[in-house]
């Protein structure tokens, strides 16, 4: 799966958890999930679990702790899928 495909799928997942969907329209790889999208840390865990289901992978605590931006998540999923 290409980086673009993963990014689009990840943003689709985020839609279910971001209170203001308009924030996602300006989202880039550098967008901070907690600060810029106003997602709380518990919802970030939900997002990561959803990613595990959608991308068929597992993400452990340490890897999850490293996810701050959309780019971090996409890179991690890409590495896992490789």
């Amino acid at each position: 799966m290409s980086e673009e495909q993963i990014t689009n799928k990840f943003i689709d997942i985020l839609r279910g958890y971001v209170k203001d969907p308009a924030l996602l329209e300006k989202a880039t790889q550098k967008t901070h999930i907690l600060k810029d999208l106003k997602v709380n840390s518990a919802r970030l865990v939900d997002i990561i679990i959803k990613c595990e289901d959608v991308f068929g992978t597992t993400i452990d605590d340490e890897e999850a702790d490293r996810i701050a931006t959309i780019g971090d998540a996409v890179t991690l999923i890409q590495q896992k899928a490789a």
Partner: protein
Amino acid sequence: MGRRDRFLLGLQYVLGQIAVIVTAPLYFLFVRLMGYRIRDLKQVRNEVRRMYREQEGPWIICPNHLTMIDSIVLSYGMASLADHIFRFRRVPWNLPERKNFQRSLLIAFLCYLSKCLPVDRGGSREGLQRLLEKCLRVLGWGQGLMIFPEGGRSRTGRVKRENYSYGVGRFIEECGRCRVMLIYLRGDGQQTYGLMPRFGERFTMVTEIFDPGRTDGSGLRVQREYARRIMDRLAAMEDACLAPRG
């Protein structure tokens, strides 16, 4: 955990232990001056003492959360002044949000001496990792850690059934030998969350040991499941507490 952090944490504990002869009476005086009373206080303290006799520690203590001074009222309800002074190790560590108590130097200092480990919500990964290591360290000493599993004061005044934090699940998963103590605390006049309970508030305080059981799955799923089980049980304790009021 680095040597420096280990030393600083140990120092905080020792200074807290020395200062408890001043800090504990101050907190107790505050509770008395505010006219706070806990129903069947002796019985509640005896119950907590019985739990500690069963297992000295480590404990993960999970109360509901309605005001900024819940930890003080809870600590008052859990043990007598003498127990605070002579059994300081039983006083649980707390995880207050840094920005809530570091506005005043005096309050920050009192919190430091009262086994508080500040949390930066949404802070850096390194900061959270250091905090997690400190928490696991104090649990490793066999001491208690008080975590509000809701992750913040409930805006509805009732135990959160959704949008709660999963942090408590991580501690339960990482600290295999910890026992979980649930506490439900509510004042007769507390309809919703607030800064402080009203003057002269009379509280009901219920404690119980909770076994979160075992669960299959990956780390994050397990943590979420533990958190869910704790919140479900706290909500049931709330229902039982509020039922007589109608």
